[in-house]
């Protein structure tokens, strides 16, 4: 059970930005939690992607996704880090996303979990649960988020990185 919860760094974007990186993450916590709220400047951008230590290889995971109607979908995919909001959605709406990374300094492979929801004044609005794995033994010292299209995060997207200690 976590008994500390410390804000390491926070960033609210002042302008459109393609990627955001938290670098030189202190190695003094047990777990990390990344809380984001994003929107993008592209009609096709939906998925946010994650990289650890600038590494985009050896990521796997399973997602479960609902879209507001129809049958929920599930499948395998790597590097998922949330569902952003494209330009076709209701103006000035942003997502709510949380990524939890336990034991980020360990010498074992790194698992992480994600829950993410969109906001849209329409039937179509995605919600997603995801379990991810980075099959790498390196301690995580940086986290990068980007979109899976050529789009960018818009101003007022926010990113909060917390450190959690178990003792």
């Amino acid at each position, binding site marked *: 059970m976590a008994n500390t919860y410390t804000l*390491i*760094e926070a*960033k609210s*974007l002042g*302008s*459109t*930005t*393609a*990627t*955001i*990186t*938290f*670098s*030189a*993450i*202190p190695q003094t916590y047990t777990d990390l939690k990344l809380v984001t709220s994003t929107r993008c400047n592209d009609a096709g951008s939906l*998925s946010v*992607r994650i990289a650890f230590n600038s590494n*985009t290889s050896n990521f796997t995971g399973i997602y479960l996704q609902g879209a507001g109607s129809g*049958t929920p*979908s599930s*499948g395998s*995919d790597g590097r998922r880090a949330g569902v952003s909001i494209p330009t076709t959605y209701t103006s000035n709406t942003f997502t709510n996303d949380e990524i939890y990374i336990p034991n980020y300094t360990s010498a074992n492979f790194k698992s992480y979990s994600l829950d993410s929801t969109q906001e849209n004044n329409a039937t179509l609005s995605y919600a997603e649960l995801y379990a991810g794995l980075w099959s790498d033994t390196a301690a995580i010292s940086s986290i990068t988020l*980007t979109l*899976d*299209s*050529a789009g*960018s995060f818009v101003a007022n997207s926010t*990113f909060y*990185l917390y450190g959690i200690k178990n003792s």
Partner: protein
Amino acid sequence: MPNPTKVIVDCSTGVTTEVELTDAEVAQREADAAAYAVEQAAREAAEAAKATAKASANAKLAKLGLTAEEIAALY
């Protein structure tokens, strides 16, 4: 037209820097986007095929005399 920018938050100093992506980074970003589009299309095709197969199986079960409730109980 300038390249998109990236934001780097240094957690050891609290300093945030915003720099323009290099041409190589832009090219990589576009290649990644194209690769993801291909992967996404493949995932969606697989999901559509699965849904079609499920509908076909349900229809065949119905022809065997199973009710909709009985078919639903199988899943």
